């Protein structure tokens, strides 16, 4: 069905004189800005926004929306992204006036309910991490990494130790080194071994007195739990360094093992992944961090404390690094995380991980018959398959498979990440999918493998567009509409 009438650009649909949001007449007698302000402040350039009626806006965006795939419509096994179902009760409760319309600078006494929720959330996240202190401030995982590294830097500065290096496995997510750089550290890459784990020899050779932090993702981005973890954290601690856990993959281990228990000193959560904040086509997220006792003094301010007079924002933190953003944090996502934890409880959270891991292993068991799975028959909550044989034999790439899946109503897996596997297809089914869905999906994958290569190179065939020219986009960047 043709949707082009309403899905042109807003600027093309815009029609001079159309209005949507009308404003009341001014009910005060005060003079206007033109009368009261010096001309030098006033704009001479009319505002160039589109002029739309409400019906135009609605048709435009509703029809546009149907050009997206999304969890609510499709199985979305995008590895490393934990695309689990976003419960509808969260949206209803998060929209309550008593939560959504609280101003961030209201005095504590006027928002005790909000503070109670967030204080509880601090505690839950500490307990799940097996760590002692939590800051809810970071806006996403990457900012959590940065915050924790700034905390580490402040800690070492406080201890008067000069440590400049952050060690990062080659399978790590790009945010790890990028965050380390902003925090002022040099990044040292650690190799993975053939089993997809940290290469211990390489690690040992690179640990020295300059080692500030070792950042590990465990389970790692290959979906493997590095069973050397205790040994690794011991080594780092012995060298006087701290261990950072990238918590993007917490969905595999909730209530089963805790980062603090296996030696991590700091970690971030991706609340938008593990605790099901809706991804919003790219955010918002929330990336709270949990740290061990000795690091608490350096956490950003404020933290929430419980006092005899109720809950309070505690700014009185002399050693704090400061803050990494304005206001408290991405409360909207934290609330959803809170709703989720309260809905599942201790037993439920453990079952989340059990089922996430069960689903991934089951999918692996179905997929391995048709595709290479370089790191073995077992995984945690996700695994990385490879199209390398297919590519060699039939010139069918991971990208081709991903694109063809779209035709069948499945979102593509994460492709070409992690970088350590060629033609990588990283699949994370999450616990909120059914066996039937996994069966269907695996069948479809196998069917695609047997389709014609040429046909696959041109996939998808049934979506609105196919294979956009990315080179052109980067070479002649068009980043905005112009008349």
């Amino acid at each position, binding site marked *: 069905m043709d949707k082009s009438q309403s899905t042109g650009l807003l600027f093309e649909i815009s029609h001079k004189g159309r209005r*949507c949001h009308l404003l009341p007449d001014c009910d*005060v007698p005060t003079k206007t800005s033109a009368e009261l302000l010096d001309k030098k402040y006033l704009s001479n350039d009319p505002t160039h926004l589109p002029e739309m009626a409400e019906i135009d806006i609605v048709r435009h*965006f509703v029809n546009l929306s149907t050009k997206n*795939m999304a969890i609510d419509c499709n199985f979305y096994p995008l590895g490393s992204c934990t695309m689990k179902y976003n419960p509808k009760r969260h949206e209803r409760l998060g929209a309550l006036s008593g939560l959504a319309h609280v101003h961030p600078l209201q005095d504590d006494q006027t928002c005790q309910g909000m503070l109670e929720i967030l204080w509880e959330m601090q505690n839950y996240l500490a307990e799940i991490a097996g760590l002692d202190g939590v800051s809810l401030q970071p806006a996403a995982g990457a900012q959590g990494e940065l915050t924790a590294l700034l905390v580490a830097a402040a800690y070492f500065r406080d201890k008067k130790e000069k440590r400049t290096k952050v060690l990062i496995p080659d399978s790590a997510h790009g945010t790890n080194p990028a965050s380390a750089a*902003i925090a002022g550290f040099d990044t040292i890459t650690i190799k993975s071994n053939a089993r997809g784990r940290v290469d211990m020899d390489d690690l040992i050779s690179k640990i020295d007195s300059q080692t500030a932090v070792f950042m590990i993702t465990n389970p790692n981005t290959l979906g493997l739990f590095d*069973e050397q*973890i205790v040994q690794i954290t011991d080594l780092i601690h012995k060298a006087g360094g701290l261990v950072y856990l990238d918590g993007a993959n917490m969905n595999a281990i909730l209530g089963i093992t805790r980062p603090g228990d296996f030696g991590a000193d700091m970690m971030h959560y991706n609340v938008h992944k593990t605790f099901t904040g809706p991804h919003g086509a790219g955010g*918002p997220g929330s990336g709270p961090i949990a740290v061990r006792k000795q690091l608490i003094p350096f956490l950003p301010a404020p933290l929430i404390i419980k006092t005899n007079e109720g809950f309070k924002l505690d700014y009185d933190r002399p050693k704090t690094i400061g803050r990494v953003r304005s206001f408290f944090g991405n409360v909207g996502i934290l609330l959803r995380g809170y709703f989720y934890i309260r809905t599942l409880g201790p037993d439920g959270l453990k079952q989340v991980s059990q089922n996430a891991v069960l689903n991934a292993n089951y999918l692996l068991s179905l997929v391995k018959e048709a595709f290479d799975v370089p790191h073995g028959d077992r995984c945690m909550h996700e695994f990385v398959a490879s199209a390398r044989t297919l590519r060699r034999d039939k010139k069918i790439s991971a990208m081709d498979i991903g694109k063809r899946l779209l035709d069948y109503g499945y979102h593509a897996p994460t492709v070409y990440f992690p970088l350590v596997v060629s033609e990588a297809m990283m699949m994370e089914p999450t616990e909120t999918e059914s066996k039937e869905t996994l069966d269907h999906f695996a069948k479809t994958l196998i069917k695609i493998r047997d389709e014609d290569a040429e046909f696959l190179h041109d996939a998808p065939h049934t979506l609105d567009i196919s294979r*956009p020219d990315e080179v052109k986009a980067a070479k002649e960047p068009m980043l*905005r509409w112009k008349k």
Partner: protein
Amino acid sequence: MPYLLNTPDDKNEMLKNIGASSIDELFSNIPESVRLNRPLDIPKALTEIELSRHIARLANSNLNADSAVCFLGGGSYDHFIPAVVDMVASRSEFYTAYTPYQAEASQGSLQAFYEFQTMISQLTGMDISNSSLYEAGSGLAEAILMAMSVTGRMGKVLVAESVHPEYRLSFITYLANLEPTVVTVACPEGKMCLNDLASKLDETVSCVIVQHPNFFGNLEEVEEIAKLVHSKGALFIVAYDPISLGILKKPGEYDADIAVAEGQCLGNPMIYGGPYLGLLSCKEAFVRKIPGRLVGQTVDRKGKRCWVLTLQTREQHIRREKATSNICTNQGLFALRAAVFLAAIGPKGLTETAELCFRKAHFLMDLLCKIPGVKPKFNLPFFKEFTIELPCNAQVVINSLIDDGILAGLSQGRWSKDLPNVMTIAVTEKRTRSELENYAAAFGAAITAASSQEKSKALKS
């Protein structure tokens, strides 16, 4: 258990196929020694009925802009959110999608972000915009890193003292372990002192940061500042209020290099501080230094116009430690909300909104300053937020107005020990004349009470 789909039968079949005897077996390479062999110490599960009751109780205990009359500002404002914004943002296809990596499966969001980028550029009069940052404080940090990269200068970063204290603290924290030092330019009269700026500005300065209108609500001399800053080859970074651009000069008109803003006011709820929306737009020349995601237009294999994430070589997932920023997840849904808001308000609506804020704020300022002992703290032009000096402690007055259902304003004493009697008040288009008059009356009564209390305390001591 909600959200878990496998029944006991399913599990058995799946385990059989996997070749495992139990789910526990799947976790076997987690060393025994680090297993948690007890339930997590968190409260037991709640059904939807129970959770809804629990949350309603807690939510009802918070004052909020629906249950009280809100005059709080400082970067977050009680502007009206048209229903159409919520409606669009509640489309499943938008809010439950991931970052649009698969362009074919994400044209809805990609086009919306392209429209967002365009509208932010139109709004600010800047060449280009990215597709969002977290919020304004860290957004300024990103802008500074960008300015360092553009100018190649690792020397000072100058910031007006009138910039939001939480924004300042944010980028100071970001820069803590990097070369530049952040130097504050004094604002003794409520706006940046140009002499102090001139004295601190030199060829090592990468950028100068000004907020306009500033944290006190006052307008800054942005045109003069821009000239000064550019005369030393530094970049001029401005933090603006998007709503103010219905009236005030756009950053592009006064030659700002990078314009950053808090986009909460563009259709996003205050929700105790986040998620918000960092806006960053800049001159075209800096395009390859811009942090965060960019959506670009291109064509597909059949020549059809379409949109993709582009210039990704700037980003962490490709460039790793050399990326322009570490940002990954950004604020997609809130950029969408802002896009819908801007389309809904349109050019006329923006101007009318700005004018309503302006006139109502000035009306209230006049009313308040009729109260004996109350006077403007500065004699400077302002937009929708203004700062007054009271004859008594501002926090005392604010506290006493809570019972009147009024969130009265921000005591500057919170951020500055020298300003216990100073408060800043924001007025949006939602406020009615009778709310303003009631506020002024309650305010007058509160001042009288507080002053006499202070006096009697003073007498006693």
